[in-house]
């Protein structure tokens, strides 16, 4: 039963990874930008939520909204002020800029909040669970996060495939110069893409923080790897692949932890490397690999 439990907890954990990874996948798909600061932005989202609750007494459910909106706005600024220019300067410049952000964010957070965790408690919801069998319980909150991430991914899918702006976004991903000939400013598409990517990752960061009960500045160095691994395991360009990738990574970590308390990270990385060796296009993807 321990193993079944590990499997179930892994699936629930995977929801957060998938939600965090969707924005990373979207930014890469539309702009070919691999956002090295994605994990730090996720943690920043967690900080915005935790700080709102701790210092301003904002109701916990509302912190998720505040964080999503705040990071979305930050995404607009980052795209307009930094990434648009970086894309013109050189192939690797966006990578360097996002790496610079990944140095700035955790250190600035340390300066403002110290290295100690800023708490974000969710009260009774954090411990409430459905007992399915002895030794097998599904926590209400982890279930909620999985449902939320399915909602986010479905929403993204509907946006991309059922709306005119979504079609324009995919067209821009195919050929950013040609969309201009039909009156689409590709920079507006980029801005919207980054707003969505940072908004969703902030929501993921908030849920992650709630799940852990708090957040510390340098966790982004871990979450960025989880997000990238999710995208590669699932396969690029497929939102449902991203969900599968998140779940696969979640199961790997959770089963790893079942084997030994110090193994979850290594187990996750090893699954990632195995996918790279045996199925480099990912579980569902067309692939960006060589």
């Amino acid at each position, binding site marked *: 039963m321990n193993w079944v439990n590990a499997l179930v907890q892994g699936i629930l954990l995977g929801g957060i990874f998938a939600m965090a990874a969707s924005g990373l996948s979207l930014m890469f798909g539309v702009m070919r930008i691999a956002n090295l600061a994605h994990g730090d932005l996720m943690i920043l989202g967690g900080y915005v939520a935790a700080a709102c609750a701790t210092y301003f007494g904002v109701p916990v459910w509302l912190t998720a909204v505040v964080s999503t909106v705040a990071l979305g706005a930050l995404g607009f600024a980052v795209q307009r002020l930094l990434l648009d220019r970086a894309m013109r300067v050189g192939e690797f410049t966006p990578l360097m800029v996002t790496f610079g952000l990944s140095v700035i964010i955790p250190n600035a957070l340390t300066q403002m909040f110290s290295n100690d965790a800023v708490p974000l408690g969710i009260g009774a919801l954090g411990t409430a669970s459905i007992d399915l069998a002895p030794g097998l319980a599904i926590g209400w909150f982890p279930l909620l996060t999985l449902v939320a991430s399915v909602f986010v991914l479905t929403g993204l899918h509907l946006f991309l495939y059922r709306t*005119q702006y979504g*079609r*324009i976004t*995919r*067209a821009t*991903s*195919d*050929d950013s*110069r*040609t*969309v*201009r*000939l*039909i*009156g*689409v*400013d590709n920079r507006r598409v980029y801005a919207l893409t980054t707003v969505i990517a940072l908004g969703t990752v902030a929501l993921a960061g908030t849920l992650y923080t709630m799940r852990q009960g708090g957040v510390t500045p340098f966790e982004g160095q871990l979450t960025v790897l989880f997000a990238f691994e999710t995208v590669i395991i699932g396969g690029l360009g497929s939102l449902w692949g991203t969900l599968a990738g998140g779940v696969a990574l979640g199961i790997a970590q959770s089963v790893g932890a079942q084997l030994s308390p110090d193994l979850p990270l290594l187990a996750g990385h090893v699954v990632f490397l195995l996918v790279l060796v045996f199925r480099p296009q990912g579980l569902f993807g067309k692939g960006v690999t060589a």
Partner: protein
Amino acid sequence: MNLLHLDSVDAGYGDFQALFGVGLTVAEGELLALVGANGAGKTTLLRTIAGELSPFRGSVCFAGGDVTALPDVRRARLGIGLVPEGRRLFGSLTVEENLQVGAATGRSGPWNLATIYDLMPLVADRRDRKAAHLSGGEQQAVAIARALMGNPRLLLLDEVSLGLAPVVVDRLYASLPDIRANGMTVVLVEQDLTRTFEVADRIACVLEGRIVLTGAAGELTRDQVTAAYFGTSEVVS
């Protein structure tokens, strides 16, 4: 009334200058054909009109306003539609999605999915296919349809017949009268002189980045145009 007017336009790519002092006027509702050898500057001229390229010197006026400083996005919304060399469809989108995206100019007019499908049954047939999986002729038809969806006032067609079988090209040209029926102005680039004389109201010959001959199609002879094409004799425009 003149819809498009270019005055002493110099343009090119980086250090390479492809157009030298080009002046050109196109009247509303007219079909102007650009004729010239490969590398003469025809594509550069179309791209300069569409705003993909900004000229080093000179001015571009469209519908009574100076658009020289406007980027391609703004010109598309004003009604300049370019069907680019190489078609440049959105390969991962279906045919219908390509057309829907074409409406992003936000302009209203006679063209919408229904009228396009009516005009081009072949495109209607393929509406659910991915654009990347179409044949060359089908792609070209979709590229034209996509530009029409933006309801432009000026349609620029860059060598629609390139690499296509003559029978396929015939079919594309067959839809030209319907496209022009609503008063659409067209500038097209075509290598085939016979076809050019069939469809054009006026012809402009481009030689080494300069316009060396312009005239009404009815008043020019094939020999004059051929001479201008190869630059074999002095011609005065």
